[in-house]
C-alpha cells in the first residue's frame, strides 16, 4: 500500500479557485474560503490536492500575495512530497500573472507561458524570514528603477524602503511572537513581499500570517494608551481599532523606547511621495489612507471585512505620472 506521501491524487480532488483573487470586501470571502479548503486538505488531512484556476479571470496584488503566502505555508507544513498541483487559468492575463509570480514553481509545477504583457511583466514576489535588507532591498531598488523608466515624475526608492523595511521588522519582531489558535504559522516566521508597476503606478505589499494587530498591540502598547484609544475608536471592530491604535501610538511621542514607529513609517511613504494610498489589513479589519496631492493629512476610511483573513497585509499604491514630487 502506498504511503500517504505518495498517494495518487484523484481527478475529483480538485479545489476550484475563485473567479477573482482579491482582498476587496466584496471578493475576499471567496478567496479565504478557498485558502481554508486548501489548509483543510493539505495541512489537517495531509492529503495532496489540485487547485483549479481554470475559471480565474482576475488577480489583484493583495489577494495574489496572500494566496502565495498561504500556499507557501501549506507546502511547508504538509508532510506530503508534492501536496499542491496547479491547473492554470485559461485566460491569458491571469495565466501570465501566475507564471510571473512563480506560483507553478512554488508548487513544483511548470507552466508553458512566457509573460509578455506590460501589465504583467513587472509583478515580482519574494519572501524572507529575517530583517536582512539584501533580498527585499534589491527587489525594491530594481522595481523602482523600472518605475522611473516609465514615469515623468520619479519614485524615490528610499521612501518606499522606509515603509517596506519597517513593515518587515514588524513581522519578524511581533507577528509570530505568540501561538495562533488556528493553523500553525509558517515554520520560519516568514514574510512575503510583492511589488508591481502598472498603469502609471507603483504597488508594494508586505504580508505575514501571524497573530495580527489586535493581539500584537496588547503586548507592545501601554495599557493607558490602549484605554484612551478605545474611547476614541469606540464602535469600530477590534482589528480596525488595533490598526488605528498602532498608527496613533507611532505618531505620538509618548513611546518610552522609540518603538512602535513602524506603522507610522508605513504612512510616511505617502507623505514623502506627495500622494498615494495605503491599506492596512489585519484579520477582519481594514484601514485605508488616501493622500491627495497638496493635502497634508490623508483621508482615513475603515472597513469591516466580511471574513477573518487570518493574516496581516500592508499595501501601498503610489501614482507615478502625477501627484508625486
Amino acid at each position, binding site marked *: 500500500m502506498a504511503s500517504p506521501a505518495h498517494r495518487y491524487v484523484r481527478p475529483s480532488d480538485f479545489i476550484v479557485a475563485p473567479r477573482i483573487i482579491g482582498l476587496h470586501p466584496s471578493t475576499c470571502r471567496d478567496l479565504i474560503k478557498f485558502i481554508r479548503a486548501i489548509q483543510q486538505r493539505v495541512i489537517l488531512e495531509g492529503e495532496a490536492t489540485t487547485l483549479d484556476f481554470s475559471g480565474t479571470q482576475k488577480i489583484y496584488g493583495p489577494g495574489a500575495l496572500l494566496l502565495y503566502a498561504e500556499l507557501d505555508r501549506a507546502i511547508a507544513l504538509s508532510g506530503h512530497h508534492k501536496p499542491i498541483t496547479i491547473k492554470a487559468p485559461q485566460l491569458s492575463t491571469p495565466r501570465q500573472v501566475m507564471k510571473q509570480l512563480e506560483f507553478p514553481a512554488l508548487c513544483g509545477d511548470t507552466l508553458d507561458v512566457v509573460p509578455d504583457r506590460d501589465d504583467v511583466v513587472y509583478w515580482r514576489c519574494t519572501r524572507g524570514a*529575517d*530583517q*536582512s*535588507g*539584501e533580498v*527585499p*532591498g*534589491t527587489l*525594491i*531598488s530594481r522595481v523602482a528603477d523600472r518605475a522611473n523608466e516609465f514615469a515623468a515624475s520619479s519614485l524615490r*526608492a*528610499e*521612501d*518606499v*524602503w*522606509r515603509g517596506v*523595511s*519597517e513593515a*518587515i*521588522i514588524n513581522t*519578524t*519582531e511581533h507577528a509570530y511572537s505568540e501561538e495562533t489558535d488556528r493553523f500553525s504559522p509558517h515554520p520560519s516566521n516568514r514574510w512575503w513581499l510583492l511589488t508591481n508597476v502598472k498603469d502609471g503606478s507603483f504597488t508594494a505589499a508586505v504580508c505575514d500570517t501571524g497573530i495580527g494587530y489586535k493581539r500584537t498591540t496588547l503586548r507592545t502598547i501601554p495599557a493607558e494608551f490602549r484605554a484612551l484609544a478605545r474611547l476614541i475608536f469606540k464602535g469600530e471592530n477590534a482589528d480596525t481599532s488595533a490598526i488605528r491604535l498602532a498608527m496613533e501610538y507611532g505618531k505620538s511621542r509618548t513611546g*518610552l523606547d*522609540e*518603538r512602535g*514607529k*513602524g506603522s*507610522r*513609517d508605513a504612512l510616511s511613504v505617502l507623505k514623502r511621495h506627495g500622494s498615494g494610498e495605503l491599506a492596512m489589513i489585519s484579520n477582519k479589519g481594514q484601514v485605508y489612507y488616501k493622500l491627495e496631492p497638496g493635502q497634508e493629512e490623508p483621508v482615513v476610511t475603515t472597513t469591516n471585512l466580511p471574513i477573518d483573513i487570518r493574516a496581516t497585509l500592508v499595501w501601498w499604491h503610489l501614482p507615478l505620472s502625477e501627484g508625486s514630487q
Partner: protein
Amino acid sequence: MKQINVAKDFTKFPSGRYMRSGNTSGEAFREKFLVPALRSRQEIEIDLDGVLGYGSSFLEEAFGGSVRATKVSPEEFFRVVHLKSSSATLVSEIRQYVKDAGRRLIHG
C-alpha cells in the same frame, strides 16, 4: 579622522533593529562602528549617502542605541561622530534619536 561609508563598508540596504534578526541591522552597525569609536573617543565621519534608504528602527537602534550602550552624552557623541549626508532631514532625524536617548539616560 576615520571615514566610514555605510554603503561601501556596511550595506546598501540598511534594515532591521537587532542583530538576531539580520546582519544589516542598526545594532550590527552600532557594534561594528559606533560603539568602538565612542569607547576609544576616536573621531569618525559617517557618509550616509549611497544606500537604498533608512528605516526609523535602524536609525534609532544604531544612533540612539549607541548612546544607551556607551552612556555618552549627546554632546560627546557629536564630538566623536560626524555625519555626512545630502539629506538634512536624515541628519536631523538622527540628531533627534541621539538627543532623545541622552535625555532618557538622565531622566530614566
